[in-house]
């Protein structure tokens, strides 16, 4: 039994959901992904509870500091140790099965440790008072310490946590993914569904890993310099260049923006791989691999430099030409999305669909991603950026992209779950999860976009003015529905049954 399987077996409640099947000889590709997926659901539970605290602080008029504490933790927990780690877990399992290579050794272990230890350290720092939102808002961490709002120890701890999380996302995970794709010996006994790099289901994974590695390197250099200075290894004067707000912010957004694009590439790729498996006529092929790959390449090429749209309202410090470039490239991603829409719908139209909860979750997550994409390109237009930047529109966009990808990966997990655990999920509960998630996800997204259209500020503890609370109530109601969908999903995992056992009638089964 591997260390990962042992940790899962020793984890209460969540361990039951993901205990690894050892009877198939596939433990080498099942164990670490299962542990990462399990850890991501633990963080989801933490994020969900924190999400409840945010409206509570406003409803019961509690100290606004609690709002900013939960805002920072809720966002960070959802984006990194939940969503990203879920992607890593399911994505690695998919890669392992496609290329027939084991997921063992120090790299997956380090991925797991850096992500979860980093997230835990950041959590402790936030509980010590470090409230910077999930995007750090540099130089706020240092200014907060200078103003005495939080301690320098909290800053050092928080930065250490963020650095470990980034090390996982920028270095370890891409290296692990690329090493599996390009190095090592294929083992036929581990091949579940062989794919080549020309397959749209694999191309996106490669592009995604490369994007994370390349787009993240500037931030690694800046982060390393700052951390060395904070620990006193180098004098602060040597780190002054990295502490320049403009340097940090641009490096941060080159990475953060492309992180979302890399996750989109990865999940689009997973959809291209999963959809053909559920076609009604059994063809197991997309309408056109060439079109699917073209969409991925367009998304990659246009998205890399579209991060400039984050600084449109910084004119003239960001020159107008760069803002126009960010505007045009952002709308270029829409062309990639249009090709992707055609490919997916044409595939279903030509071959029919077996509408099982897993693939429906993937497709609805993708539909949510299209809504998110539309909101993103709109706010990337220079004219609209000036009336939307800094509003709830942006929060809606960030939350929706994370939700969309989470729903897609949770859908893909339906497909992988029996291989990992040797157990199956209840389709009726799966259908309820999809229904609730769709209502909650689309409802929360549209409510947040509407709040942004009405000028409601993001990361703002006082919604009860200018009639904004109506959007606050809608966000809370749809958020609770989303929470209910996660509870149903978790309940389904807890109630999973042996593959040979008959599935009884469950809630909502017809």
């Amino acid at each position, binding site marked *: 039994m591997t260390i990962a399987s042992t940790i899962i077996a020793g984890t209460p409640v969540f361990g039951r959901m993901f205990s690894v099947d050892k009877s198939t000889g596939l433990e080498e590709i099942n164990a670490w992904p299962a542990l990462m997926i399990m850890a991501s659901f633990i963080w989801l539970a933490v994020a969900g509870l924190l999400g409840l605290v945010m409206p509570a602080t406003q409803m019961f008029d509690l100290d*606004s500091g609690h709002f*900013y504490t939960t805002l920072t933790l809720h966002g960070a927990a959802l984006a990194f140790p939940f969503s990203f780690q879920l992607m890593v877990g399911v994505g690695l399992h998919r890669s392992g099965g496609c290329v027939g290579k084991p997921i063992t050794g120090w790299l997956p272990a380090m991925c797991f440790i850096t992500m979860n230890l980093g997230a835990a350290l950041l959590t402790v720092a936030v509980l010590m008072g470090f409230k*910077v*939102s999930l995007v750090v*808002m540099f*130089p*706020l961490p240092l*200014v*907060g310490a200078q*103003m005495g*709002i939080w301690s320098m120890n909290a800053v050092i701890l928080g930065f250490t946590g963020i650095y470990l999380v980034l090390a996982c996302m920028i270095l370890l995970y891409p290296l692990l993914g690329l090493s599996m794709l390009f190095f090592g010996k294929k083992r036929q006994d581990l091949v579940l569904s062989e794919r080549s790099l020309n397959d749209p289901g694999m191309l996106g994974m490669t592009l995604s890993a490369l994007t994370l590695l390349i787009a993240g390197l500037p931030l690694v250099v800046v982060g390393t310099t700052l951390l060395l200075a904070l620990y006193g290894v180098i004098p602060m004067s040597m780190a002054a260049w990295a502490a320049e*707000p403009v340097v940090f*912010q641009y490096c941060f957004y080159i990475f953060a923006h492309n992180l979302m694009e890399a996750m989109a590439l990865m999940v689009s790729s997973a959809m291209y791989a999963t959809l053909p498996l559920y076609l*009604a006529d059994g063809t197991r092929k997309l309408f056109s691999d060439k079109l699917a790959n073209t969409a991925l390449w367009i998304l990659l090429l246009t998205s890399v430099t579209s991060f400039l749209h984050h600084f449109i*309202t*910084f*004119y*003239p*410090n960001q020159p*107008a030409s760069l803002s126009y470039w960010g505007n045009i490239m952002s*709308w270029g991603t829409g*062309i990639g999305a*249009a090709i992707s*829409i*055609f490919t997916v719908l*044409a595939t*279903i*139209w*030509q*071959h*029919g*669909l077996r*509408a099982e909860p897993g693939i429906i979750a993937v497709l609805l997550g993708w*539909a949510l991603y*299209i*809504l998110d994409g*539309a909101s993103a390109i*709109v706010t990337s*237009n*220079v*004219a609209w950026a*000036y*009336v939307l*930047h*800094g*509003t709830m*529109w942006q929060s809606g966009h960030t939350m929706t992209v994370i939700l969309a990808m989470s729903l897609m990966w949770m859908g893909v997990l339906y497909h992988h779950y029996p291989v990992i655990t040797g157990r199956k999920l209840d389709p009726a509960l799966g259908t309820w999860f999809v229904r609730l998630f769709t209502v909650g996800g689309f409802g929360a997204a*549209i409510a947040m*976009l*509407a709040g*942004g*259209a*009405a*000028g409601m*500020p*993001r*990361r*703002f*503890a006082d919604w009860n003015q200018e*009639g904004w609370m109506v959007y606050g109530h809608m966000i809370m109601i749809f958020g609770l529905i989303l929470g209910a969908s996660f509870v149903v999903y978790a309940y389904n995992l807890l109630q999973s049954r042996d593959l040979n056992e008959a599935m009884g009638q469950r809630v909502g089964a017809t």
Partner: protein
Amino acid sequence: MLDFLFSGWGAFWVTMGMLLPFAGMFWYVIHRKSVVDSGPGTTPRAAMSRLEGYWLTAVFVIFVTINLASLKFMPIIATARAATAGPPVQEVAVTATSWTYEMSSRQVETGKPVRFSARAKDTQHGFAVYHPDGRMLFTMLMMPGVSKPTTVVHTFSDPGTYKIRCLEYCGIAHHGMKDELTVVKSNAAT
């Protein structure tokens, strides 16, 4: 019409205008091909390719049209024009510090371009101006340590009291960082 389109609510309805046809198409295809008739489609490949061409052309034309129409509403262009020519500009210098604004003037006139030049002293701040009816007119992002102030030129058309808010999270009293700007009727206009 275009004024509304390039406002916050205009952005919302354009987004919904993209979502709703997609959602309709998405639901129709999935329902039709998984519930009504999941058998193989009979549409010839050539017809599908034509459809692909029409679809991508339509998307491209819509995208280009929207972006060209937006040129008139880009504050960057008005700001750049005011820097070189145009009517006299009222200057308002702003310095943002956690959690207040220092402004060289809190009163401006309608009909005359106002140039807001804003700097952040300590950390990132925003400077968003809201119309008395609640609409956000524009926002600016300021970072400390830059040589030039963030700049927007805006011409107010309605007199009244305009709210100013910071839209960049700047710490535990961020939500309290606000101010007001009074816009009075221009003497020239009366």
